[in-house]
């Protein structure tokens, strides 16, 4: 499995993390696993490297965090804020625009 993702995917991690957190509160390990499994291992975050990224999103007030005890384990759970939701909407629109454009071009090449 690739440990690093191609450079044209800049900005995609933000979209993925915000999208995952829009559904429910999650902690770092869960986010890494969800990205790996839900993208069928096409994309992956380096283990441990998710944390500075989450801290950055928190500093940008796109996510908030709190300590929570679940099943005797204490972890930092992250959840989307109103600002994060707005950012997610922007990124989703941008992503749809780009993928539609790329798909049209690819289909044109094959036609």
């Amino acid at each position, binding site marked *: 499995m690739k440990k690093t993702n191609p450079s044209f995917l800049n900005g995609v991690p933000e979209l993925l993390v915000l999208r995952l957190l829009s559904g429910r509160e999650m*902690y*770092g*390990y869960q986010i*890494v696993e969800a990205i790996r499994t839900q993208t069928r291992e096409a994309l992956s975050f*380096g*283990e*441990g*490297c998710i*944390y*500075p*990224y989450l*801290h*950055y999103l928190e*500093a940008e007030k796109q996510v908030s965090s709190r300590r929570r005890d679940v099943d005797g*384990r*204490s*972890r*930092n759970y992250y959840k989307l804020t109103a600002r994060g939701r707005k950012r997610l909407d922007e990124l989703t629109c941008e992503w749809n625009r780009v993928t539609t454009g790329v798909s049209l071009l690819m289909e044109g090449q094959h036609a």
Partner: protein
Amino acid sequence: MPDTDFIEQLRGRLVELGCPKAHVRRLVREVAEHREDLKQAAVLEGLSGADAESQANAQLGDPIALAEHLMVAVRRSSWLGRHFVVTFSLLPLLAFPVLWLLLMIIELSLGFALGFGWDYKKLHVAAINPVANHHINIALRSMDYAAITLVALLFCWLARRSAVSAKWMVTSCAICSFYALVTYGRVEPHSFTMGFITSTAGIPPIHQCIKATIPLLIAGVFYVFQRRAKHELRRNATA
């Protein structure tokens, strides 16, 4: 590698790289929890405790490399860290005169309010009196020193906060030091002057030279504290 070794190596390298303490604490705690999750997942897959630990270590990789990777991510996560050349070499050049002037105005206003109750007449009378004038100039010089100190502290704090290397902290303090050498404030009977020494002839007065050493001393103190923190960590790790 036992749990404590992995975590201590990670912590040690983060401190060595100049990662701020709050970041180190939080990153180490979260990576340790992540490692525990990887171990538990491996145990659920049917691996023994030792094998699960080896698998978790393999997934996280070398703790030194991980710390370096984390550090790059920490630096990139702030605007200051991403634009460290601008922040610590160009920004002090532009921001120093503004910050210094602002701090001097605040301090002078406070001094004027507390010392003379906003009464210009009292100030003029004091300025004519040689002894009072001397005291006013000492107070003014102290304010100048305080302003220089605050600006240098601000840049050192920004450098620590954005986790850039010590050389950038020293660069910004060297720029502050240069400005300290050429800025002045002086009270004379019926006049108050503040600005930049423009003449290149001769050596700056001794108090200007003393003032110029303040930012360098502050950078030195920050550097020594950082070194001490690293040594302390190494001692704790080997103990």
